[in-house]
Each structure stands twice: as structure tokens, then as C-alpha cells.
């Protein structure tokens, strides 16, 4: 029969199988899973392997083999070695493989396992309303932060962006420039571990937002200076926008203290100092709401990435003008020939 049929029987069979698999999934009252269609690996097993890929429960000594690599008060960025995690998954899959038939079956099925765990890996930490990221897994990067800031400020916010965004940007989770976090966990009270889906160009670490807070900022200078002073930026009470540059504290308003009383504010003198600033729209007197706006203290945000003139790492590899110096830090600094030369140095 030479006529080209519109719908072959094989297609009909495939459609029947797919429909029954989809229907069977929807009949069970499970949360919607973006993974549809037939799968080789059961979803629960794929999820466990994906969590393993994201280094869940892997002892810390395997992640950082020497404490010198993560000293106190340090932030360490890194790439996730996919060959390492593949070996991890292969190790897990090898459980219970005894006979040659088992090995043959594992070899036959492993390419599917790898692809499907790739898929499941990206579904980690997907909120219910977000579109599920599908497609093959790309490079994964990480951040290890060991600091007293992790211990003292539980609930830090970490955001990673694939493009340069302003330091004060507040982009929603769904913004395409924002990279998703695959994992964010405190491995120890003072060690924060973050895995990022992609290679970020800029990373924000922000104080936890525990409601609104009011306070002052210390003046620039030696942080060990114990002669404590306080400064507040005057704000327009109608908009809350500061009237002075936030990065130059010389024009901020000093907070007055009561004599012989540690830390106690002299509200009258502080109020008078604030009233003397033009442009605050406060009128002739200060009420409590206006006073609270002047004392508002927003969470501090540390930006890892280029600051000042936004430099392109390709044209300015030395990264001059960067504060955290992360752009050049995040580029591999060694090539394979150099590596080979180094390894063969002792043997030749």
C-alpha cells in the first residue's frame, strides 16, 4: 500500500498510552507536576536523585576538603562540577546491582536517568505559581558564605541576576534576569550554602526584612571607633525618598544624644536638626509619623559584582573599578595547557 496515511496506528497507540498516563496522573490528587508524558524514572526517585545532585546530605568535608579554603568571614563563589554530581548519582544508582544483567540494565537506562534527573533538578524550589523551568540543565554556580552575619541574621535574602541590575533594584521572582536559587541552606550556624541556576553577573545579599525598623547609621570611618555617633538621611515624608545621597554621609543629619545617658536620644534636638533640613515637607512641627519616617532604616544590601563604572570583563579583565572584585574572580584563571604543564612539572 503506497498511500501515505494521515494517522498511523502507531501514532494512535502512542496517543492512547500518553493520554492514559496523563489521566492517571491527574486522577491522583497530587500537586501539578510539569513533567508529563512517559518517564523512565519514577518521580519520587528522580526527585531524590535531584536533591542528591544538589548535594543534599553530602558531608561538608566532601564539599570543602580543607578549612583553609573557607576561612572565617569569607565568601567563596564556585562552579558546580557536573561530573562530580554525575559520579554521585552513579554511585547511588549502583546500589543493589549485583549481576551482569543488573549492570547491563543500568547502562541501558542511565542516559534516561541522567536526562530526567537534569529535568527534576531544575524543579527544586519552584514556587507553586511560578512557571516551571524546563529544558536541559545548564551550568550551576554556588556561593559559600561563612560569616557571623549568617549566624546573627538568620533569613538572609540572596538574589542572583544574570545581567547587571542597579544596586537598589527590587525585581520580582519572575523577572527573566533573575536567576533561580536551586538550594539555599545553612549548613552550619555560620555557613550559608547557595546554589544558583546559571552563572550570575551580580549577586545581592540582603539583611532579613523583619518588618519595619527604625534606627541610625554610624558615620564612615574606623568601625572600631567606640565614640558612637548616629546619622540619619533626611527624607521627604510624602514619598519616603531620601533627600541626600545615600552613599555620602557628610550631608546626613546627626542624631543628638542626651548628656550622660548612653544611647538615649535627645529627641528635641534631633527634631530641630531635622526641621532645619529643607525639602522634607514636614511643616513647622514634627509628629510621630514624620519622625518615624526620618528614622526608617531599610535593610542593608551587599552587592557582589561590579560597582561604579560597570566594566565589561572582556574589555577590562583586570576589573578596575570593581568593589567586590567578583567579575574577575569568577572567571577561570587557568587554562588546560598551563595545567598540564604544572602537573607534568614534577615528572619531567
Amino acid at each position, binding site marked *: *500500500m503506497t*498511500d501515505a496515511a494521515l494517522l498511523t*496506528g*502507531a501514532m494512535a497507540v*502512542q496517543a492512547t*498510552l500518553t493520554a*492514559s498516563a496523563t489521566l492517571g496522573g491527574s486522577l491522583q490528587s497530587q500537586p501539578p507536576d510539569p513533567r508529563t508524558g512517559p518517564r523512565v524514572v519514577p518521580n519520587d*526517585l528522580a526527585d531524590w536523585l535531584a536533591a*542528591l545532585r544538589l*548535594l543534599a546530605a553530602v558531608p561538608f568535608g*566532601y*564539599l*570543602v*576538603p*580543607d578549612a583553609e579554603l573557607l576561612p572565617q568571614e569569607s565568601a567563596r563563589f*564556585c562552579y558546580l*562540577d557536573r561530573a*562530580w554530581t554525575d559520579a*554521585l548519582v*552513579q*554511585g*547511588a*544508582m549502583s*546500589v*543493589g*546491582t549485583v549481576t551482569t544483567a543488573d549492570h547491563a*540494565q543500568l*547502562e541501558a537506562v542511565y542516559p534516561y536517568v541522567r536526562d530526567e534527573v537534569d529535568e527534576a533538578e531544575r524543579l527544586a524550589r519552584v514556587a507553586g505559581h511560578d512557571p516551571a523551568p524546563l529544558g536541559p540543565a545548564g551550568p550551576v554556580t554556588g556561593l559559600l558564605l561563612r560569616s557571623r552575619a549568617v549566624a*546573627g541574621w538568620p533569613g538572609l535574602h540572596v538574589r542572583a541576576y544574570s545581567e547587571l541590575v542597579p544596586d537598589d533594584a527590587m525585581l520580582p521572582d519572575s523577572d527573566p534576569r533573575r536567576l533561580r536559587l536551586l538550594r539555599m541552606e545553612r549548613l552550619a550556624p555560620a555557613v550559608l550554602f547557595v546554589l544558583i541556576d546559571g552563572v550570575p553577573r551580580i549577586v545581592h545579599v540582603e539583611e532579613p526584612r*523583619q*518588618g*519595619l*525598623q*527604625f534606627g541610625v547609621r554610624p558615620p564612615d570611618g574606623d*568601625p*572600631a571607633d*567606640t*565614640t558612637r555617633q*548616629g546619622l540619619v538621611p533626611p527624607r521627604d515624608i510624602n514619598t519616603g525618598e531620601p533627600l541626600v545621597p545615600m552613599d555620602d554621609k557628610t550631608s546626613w543629619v546627626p542624631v543628638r544624644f542626651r*548628656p*550622660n*545617658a*548612653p*544611647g*538615649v536620644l*535627645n*529627641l528635641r534636638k534631633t527634631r530641630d536638626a531635622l526641621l532645619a533640613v529643607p525639602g522634607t515637607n514636614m511643616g513647622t512641627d514634627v509628629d*510621630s509619623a*514624620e*519622625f*518615624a519616617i526620618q528614622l526608617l532604616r531599610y535593610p*542593608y544590601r*551587599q552587592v557582589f559584582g561590579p560597582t561604579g563604572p560597570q566594566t565589561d570583563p572582556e574589555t577590562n579583565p583586570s576589573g578596575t573599578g570593581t568593589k567586590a572584585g567578583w567579575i574577575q*574572580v569568577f572567571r577561570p*584563571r587557568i587554562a588546560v595547557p*598551563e*595545567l598540564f604543564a604544572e*602537573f607534568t612539572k*614534577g*615528572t619531567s
Partner: protein
Amino acid sequence: MPSTPQPGFFNLWSALTPPLRAGQFRLDARVDLDPGAAPTSLPVETGQTFFTVDAPRFALPAGQLLSTYPPANGNGAYSERLPQVVLKRRTLPWERAPGTGADAALPWLALVVIAQGEGTLSPEVDVAQCVTPGVALAGAADVTQGVYLEVTKTVVDAVFPTKEDLPLLCHVRQVDLSDTELALGDDDGWMAVVLANRLPWPASADPTTTGGSDQPAAAPVQYLACLVNLEGQLAALPDVAEDEVGTFVPVDAIAHFDAYADAFADPDSLAMAQPAAGPPQAGPGTPRPAIVARSTLSDTWATAPAAAAAPTALGIDAGRAVREIMGRPWRTPAAAVTAEQTYRFPVLTHWQFTVDGDPSFEGLMQALDVALLGSLPDLDPQAPPAPRPAPDVAATGHVGLAHLTRRGDQATAWYRGPLAPRPAKRDSSTATDGPLPVAHASDQLRRVTPDGREDLTYAAAFEIGRLLALSQPSVVAALMRWRAEQFGAARAAELAAQTVAGTSLLGGPPAITDVAGLGRLVGGALLGRIDADPAATVGPRRPLADPGAPIAGLTGDLEAVVATGLGLDIDALRAQAGQVGVVDALANTAVPMADAPAGPLLEGPDLTTLRSAAEAIAGRMATQAAAGAAPLAGAAPLAGAAPLAGAEAGARAQPDALDRLLTELGP
């Protein structure tokens, strides 16, 4: 009501004063009538209703406290933030009048933050004792027992807000309820905020204890935040002179009564001056004298931890017990050790926190050492030699680690964790052996680097993955079950293949591998087999359209046949179609039609012959009719002239075809 702010935004209001403050009221109901329309007086009795507007006074009701900052029992660098308490009822700070006259509009609540040693927090006592002796609060108390804060006049002058400060420290916040971060679990989005007027600073560094280091560590200080009731005691608040502006004062420079306590040579005399002796209060820093803890609760005698304390057995709620435990460091009675005037303020709620000398979040983050993993911190040449040498780190992030081989040799091996300073190739392949196969044992992943040492990176990864899977029986069970299912699926597919192959209709192996039941599998295999060669199984496929039957005589050029039939000149039509197109050519071509004859249909001898024949027939018929035979009527023969008359009438009424022909032919 103003519009609700969007999530992420908030409105601040300076005050929300309730129409009625707390107290007892009398409602007089009187009837007044228009005197012009009715008698001037009506015998309607004046109605009186008494009611009480209630408000918290000595204790904050459960649920009214939405949030505190710093968090209770917190320990951190809070020295740049003002402590605050967020209250659920938006009018709470204005529901009572702290004074009379103009002072009645002031908030009656203040958040007072005292450092350890600056004041005394009482245990639960009768509310009548909760205010400074000599001050009497009119009206009913909301609870029978309360807690008070006892401070000296020095501390009040130094720490308490002035009367002028009070309205600046209370405001109302309005947020969107759906903003979970700002709404704090409130029910209407309105909440009252009471700020403290004091930044909780850590104590200044003591140069004698920091060993002369360049960066003296500030000592941690315990603070107690109390939400106090200022009713009737506004006069005790300090009045700061106009022109005084203070600068830095160490937190331990304030004159608190611990100094007085030290002045007593023998602390035992203090204890013996009291009717009951409590346990010594061990505080941080210098040893404190054993001082009385006046308490009505027996648990103050106990040194057991809070969980084992008696209050639970006594039926006191857990929150009160926790507050009782928390307040113990502030139990030193100030009045017992100082001759100065002391004040007591009722405390609605209190919590403690510790401010240590840690730098701020900003300072910590800016001092971070940022690098890629695998880079070692820069060594200070002046620093003393480290107790152990720096690790052997390659530029790829590999670390040389001691390795005890299986043969017992002491060696070093390279290892790199999953976190590498450079992007690693996922499929590590060399030029010789191509991509790696799936490893079945960790030894398959051992590598030897060019320097002779082994690279155990992936072997270690394999092994820890295997151990992690083995550590969870559920994972092992899932793996085994899945593997069994896969083998089972293969078996079922094989069985289905044999089943289908056994039927005489089909041949060849089935191609279906996706399986969810043998019946479906066999069905699928059947369908697949049928689809593979339908001609052999169910017969030839019927064509989509049947050809039509051939028309006899329709041979040759079809266009010419049609044109000839229509009387068209096919050559002229083709020539015109070449110029204006086929459609226009057909539209312009008229179909030749036969003309209708102008004259009579017949003339001459033919007409004469036909007419004579017709007359002969008509005459014969008339003769038959007259003879009584009426075959034309088709009825039974009738007698007399009646049938003839009837026949004539019928013919005249309905002319038949012959009549019409005769009429037309006739001249």
C-alpha cells in the same frame, strides 16, 4: 477610611485617639420635644445607663503583642536600631490619659530600655504595689497582679523619655493585610508602634581585658525592654535642658545601684535586713552581692531550670513563667541598696536581649574576603606561623590530601569537591578512550594525574553517593522496586510478543515497549502489527475516491468535443483565451442558439393533407357518436339525446389537446 496601601508600602499616622478613653461613663438619655408642637413637658423619665470602657492597664492581653525588636532573648548587634514593640490594637497607646489637662492627650505607654543593673523588675505583686508609693491610680485594674519596674531617679533622668518625647515615640502603621512580611499576622492591617528612645549600645571596651589589641572588643550588655504605664507619673519624667547635647557616654558610666551595692562592706547585712532571703543572683561580670529577691512565688527559691520550675504546678500560665525566669537578672532591689528616690512603673510586657560588640551587618559584609573557592587567603607576613601548613591547593581547586592506600602506603592524593573554581567538563573524556561509561564501582573513576598522584575526586563522589543511597532504606527499596518493574516490563513485553506471534494472522515481533498491563500491551502489539502491514492482515485499503464510469464516444480532445457540442469555434476561442484569458474568453463568447420559426408551423400540401385527414376522423367520430356508441365517454351507453348533450357539454367545458391543435391549425 483611607485606601489600603499596596503590598510593600505602608502609611504612618501620628496618632489615633479613641472617642472615649478608658474609664467608667454614665449615659443620660433625655427626651426633648419641640415646644411649639406639643405640650411643653412630657412625663418621660430620664434614662441612665452606666458603662465601662475597658483598656489594658497592668498587663498586655495575650495576642496584642505582634512583634518586638530586638527579638526576645536575641543576641546580636542591635546597637543601631531603636527597640520597638508593635501592638495589635491601633488605639492602645491613647486609650488612657497619663495626666490631666493638656497632658491627657499624651500616650500613656512608653517603651523603656534599661541596661542590666539600672533597674529592678519585680515579680508578680498586687497591682496596688505596682506604682510609686504615694501615687494612686483611680479606676479599676484589669488584673489583680502585675509587674513593676523600679528605677532610681538618676536612671529615670537618664533613660526615660521626656514628656515632650512621648508623642514622638508612638505612631500607627497601616499596611496591606496580604503583605505577610509587614502585616505580622494582624487582623485589620492597622497596628500601633511604640518606639524606645534609646539605642542599645554595647559596653565600651575594657583595655585591661583585651590585652592591648588594636581592636578592642566591646563587651556584651544585657538589656531589658519594658512597656511601662505612665499614668499619674508624668511628673517623674525628666526634663532635659534645652541646650545640652550629649556625645558619647559609655554604657557602664551611668550611675546605677550596683555601685551603691559595692559600697556596702558586708552584703550579708542586706540579706538579713529582709524578711526572706532569695538565692544569689549570678550575673555576668563581677560577682554581685547576695541580695534578696522579694517574691511571693516559691519557685524563686528554686535553682532548677525553667522547665522544672514550680509555676506550672501552681497553675500559672507558661508565658508568665517564662517572663518570670527572664526577669530574674533584674531582681536586685534598687530600693534596698540606694538611698535615692526610686520610682515604680507598672510593666505591661517586657523582654530581654543582649547586645554584643559584633560589628554591624554592613561592617561584616564589607569586610568579607571574597574569592573563588580554592583560593587561599593572603597570608600576613607578620603573622605567627600557622599551627599547620597551608593545604596543597592546585589552581584547578584540587587539594592534596593524605591518602592511606589499600596496601597501607602513606601517600597523598588529589581531591576536589563538587564546588570547583572553574567550570568543569561534564563528560570528561580524553582523546584516547572517549566518553566514560557508566561506573559500576568507584575504582572505575580513579585517575592518575601526570604528576604520579592519584585523583580520587570522582571515586570519592561515587562512594559517598552509594553510601548516601544505602543510608536510606526507602531509597534502596525504591531503587529495587523500580529495577524489578523494569525487568517485569521487559518480561511482559516479551510475553506479549510471543502471544501476538502465536496468532496465525500476524507475523514478526511487536514493536511496542511501553507497558502498563499485559492486556493493553497485547492490544497495542496487535494494533502495531496491523499497522505495519495492513494489506496482509485486513485486506487492501480502499481508495479515497472511486473513479467514474467511462462515457462511450467521448474520445479525442475533450475541449474540442465540448466546444463542438456547444457550437463554438474552438480555434477562435483558444486564440481569444490567449489574449484575455480563458474565463474572459468564455464570457465574451456567445453560444449559438436556433431561431424560433416566424410563420405558421405548416404550409401547403402538408397542411391540406393533415386537415383533410383530421376532418375525416372527426366525421367518423361524429357518426359513431350519433349511432349511440360513445367509446370516448368511457361510460355505459345511455339512451336518448341526453348522452350527446352531455358529451357536447363536457367537450366545451374542458378543451383537450386535440381542441388546442385544431384551434392552432385552423385559420
